[in-house]
């Protein structure tokens, strides 16, 4: 660490209500380096950078930039100090042209825009210099995602920047585009700029960084030069937990195939290929894990199986019967349960009571409905039963679910899905954002389900969770299943490497 760092963020705290998103982060960046921020989703990387850019105000902490304290909490201050950020969700106005986006917010509001030709010329010049191929008069909404990203990067360069922050820039890029981006970053550093590169992809980070800071649980847990580390260490730092949970469990006794997926391919909501020729099977009495760095197709896999995302090709079967192309309602009716990735987006209805949330998919089926009417006594009894069995902390079943903690909300989702007596349970990010006690409880419940003969597919970015309950683990990378590893903690590094897209010699090859 140098005596006078280029940038020092000191003990930054930030919380939204009771949710802590930055727990005393300290980060130092030196001039002229590519500094990677590595960490899982929710580790606090984007929040930290938003604070640096003035979009979010921290509760406490200070930032020293170029030797002087930075007046934080104002985007214009950051712009003035030539700090530029390329956001994960592009800050480009879709109905404006590239050049218009660049002059947005520049100068006096009362200024007339008459010198657009000059702007165009400068954009072309910069675009040529870095080989970005950006056309200044193109309208954003007509551009592909990769093109939009180049527009975003050039926007920051256009405004003049000494410190460039790239937030998950490769998440939406093809491998070829990623290569070009990494080359560009090196070129920028050569021009004397400093780059902060946010990613959770080990391979990219190893390829391009000078130094790496690993974030976990809203803190920087380690900073190292790239030469002093290796992907295994980084993987461990990223996913590592202080407490390794050892849940007692019997060896699996897999039975018939319940879910079978063959040749599944589909696109994400941006129209980009998300899944490529996925094949997998889940048998009665086993838990199959799907590991992978987020953004490698796990979300789409879950949605496609649940019938919530149209598929391009492939076949899905449940209990030997074809379910390809069926509606979510039809799939739900085939002993299929789904614990969704984002409970706020899909799993629960915040303004409603626990009881009303407990019947989400079965609102029109007996015993909860009879002759079209909700059977309130039965629903209440059922919900009380779930509350008791899952030890959900709530005054009663009439409480609004919004008033519960995240862990208790998730318990209700799990309880609801398990109560449907499914043959197959699709689980995404089972323990995201909930406390340790609830995690352990939920994991144990999943094991009980396995032992009761159910087939479970657990998609997770939490390796610890996967190792704790899975029988075997599939690793996804770039929309494909790269390999399968037995769920044995000694194989953790192997999984880490697969997550980074590296195949080791002794890993069983799969399509």
């Amino acid at each position: 660490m140098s005596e006078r760092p280029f940038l020092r963020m000191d003990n930054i705290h930030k919380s939204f209500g009771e949710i802590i998103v930055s727990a005393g982060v300290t980060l130092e960046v030196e001039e002229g380096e590519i500094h990677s921020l590595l960490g899982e989703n929710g580790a606090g990387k984007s929040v930290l950078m938003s604070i640096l850019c003035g979009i979010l105000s921290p509760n406490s902490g200070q930032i020293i930039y170029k030797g002087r304290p930075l007046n934080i909490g104002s985007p214009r201050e950051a712009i003035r100090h030539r700090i530029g950020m390329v956001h994960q969700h592009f800050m480009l106005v879709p109905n404006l042209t590239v050049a218009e986006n660049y002059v947005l917010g520049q100068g006096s509001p009362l200024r007339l825009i008459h010198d657009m030709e000059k702007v165009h010329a400068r954009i072309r010049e910069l675009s040529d210099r870095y080989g970005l191929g950006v056309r200044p008069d193109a309208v954003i909404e007509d551009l592909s995602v990769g093109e939009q990203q180049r527009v975003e990067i050039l926007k920051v360069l256009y405004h003049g920047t000494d410190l460039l922050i790239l937030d998950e820039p490769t998440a939406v890029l093809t491998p070829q585009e990623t290569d070009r981006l990494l080359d560009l970053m090196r070129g920028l550093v050569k021009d004397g700029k400093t780059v902060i590169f946010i990613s959770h992809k080990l391979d990219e980070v190893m390829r391009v960084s000078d130094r790496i800071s690993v974030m976990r649980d809203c803190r920087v847990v380690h900073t190292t030069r790239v030469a002093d580390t290796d992907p295994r260490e980084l993987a461990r730092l990223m996913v590592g937990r202080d407490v390794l949970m050892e849940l007692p469990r019997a060896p699996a006794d897999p039975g018939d195939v319940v879910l079978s997926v063959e040749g599944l391919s589909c696109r994400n909501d941006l129209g980009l290929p998300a899944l490529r020729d996925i094949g997998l099977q889940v048998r009665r009495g086993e838990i199959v894990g799907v590991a992978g760095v987020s953004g490698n197709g796990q979300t789409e896999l879950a949605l496609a199986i649940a019938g919530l995302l149209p598929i391009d090709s492939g076949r899905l079967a449940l209990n030997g019967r074809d379910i390809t192309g069926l509606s979510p309602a039809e799939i739900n009716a085939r002993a299929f349960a789904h614990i969704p990735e984002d409970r706020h987006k899909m799993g629960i209805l915040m303004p409603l009571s626990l009881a009303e949330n407990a019947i989400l998919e079965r609102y029109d089926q007996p015993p909860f409905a009879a002759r079209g009417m909700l059977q309130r006594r039965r629903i209440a009894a059922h919900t009380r039963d779930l509350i008791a069995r899952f030890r959900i902390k709530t005054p009663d079943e009439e409480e609004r679910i919004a008033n519960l903690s995240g862990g208790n909300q998730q318990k209700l989702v799990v309880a609801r899905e398990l109560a449907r007596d499914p043959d197959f349970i699709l689980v995404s990010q089972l323990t995201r954002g909930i406390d340790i006690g609830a995690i352990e409880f939920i994991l144990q419940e999943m094991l009980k389900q396995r032992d009761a003969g159910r087939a479970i597919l657990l998609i997770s970015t939490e390796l610890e969770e996967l190792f704790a309950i899975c029988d075997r683990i599939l690793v996804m990378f770039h929309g494909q299943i790269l390999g399968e590893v037995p769920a044995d903690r000694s194989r953790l590094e192997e999984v880490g490497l697969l997550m980074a897209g590296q195949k080791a010699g002794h890993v069983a090859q799969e399509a």
Partner: protein
Amino acid sequence: MLDILTLGFLATLLGAAWRLATPLIFASIGEVISERAGVLNIGLEGTMLMGAFCGFAASFATGSIPLGLAAGIAAGMAFGLIFAFFTITVKANQIVVGAAINLLGLGLTAFLFRTYYVSTGRGVDIARPVRIPWLSDLPFFGEALFRQNLIVYSTVLVTVLAVILLYRSSFGLTLRAVGDHPKAVDVAGRSVAAYRYGAVLIGTGLAGLGGAFLTLGHSNQFVEGITSGRGFIALAVVVFARWSPVGAFFVSLLFGLFYALQLQLQAQPMLNIPYQAFQALPYLMTIVALIVVGGKSAAPRKLGTPYDER
């Protein structure tokens, strides 16, 4: 035979259409600006009424038309400020607040008019037609089209200014961005709320002007409910015009034309089309336009959505 095929008829029709379109042009261009910033103001009707009443009252008191127009604009903006406070600062539902604004506009203008002006029975002077050299001397069209008052002519100016504001100024660029991607504006260091306040105030100011035209540029008196639904038609104009000020100008003219045509065709004894058919046409056409152009495709992406900084 039918008088309607003559050039003179056409010229008169266009002249009438322009006058009938004038309040619509002001209000709809104002609403274009407001909606481009993502704020849907269905309270235009009440706002126009305020403009009509306050314009009348100010002119009544001072005898000055310019002061009356200024008062109309100011009254519109005052209502705009209420609307903006509730929708932008309090982040309340824009439809609900707009409905309340309509009630307030109608109630207040009628209440005050009855309390203070009913028994006066006196009108105000209205803006006189102004001849434009050369144009007004054109045969047929000069006589009918270019013998309007300055307020009517100023619709062209307002349209041009709106185009410059929206498409040629830094303010307009940011304003359009606010309706489409407010976060990008926030990140660029500009206040989304300030721009939305600005857009709403411009929009309601123009609506106030549109209302004031009715009492200061066309009739010389305030009548309860004088706007007669024009605030709602302006909303339709905006959709039909696909959120473009130039489009709003011409769609308003088109709607004005329907109205003028309806009045003129009734006066043709040999034509027997129910005049209601023409009255319903603008509304039907707006629905068809929505189907053809698609509801969402042209609308600002964040129309009607309060901006949450998080």
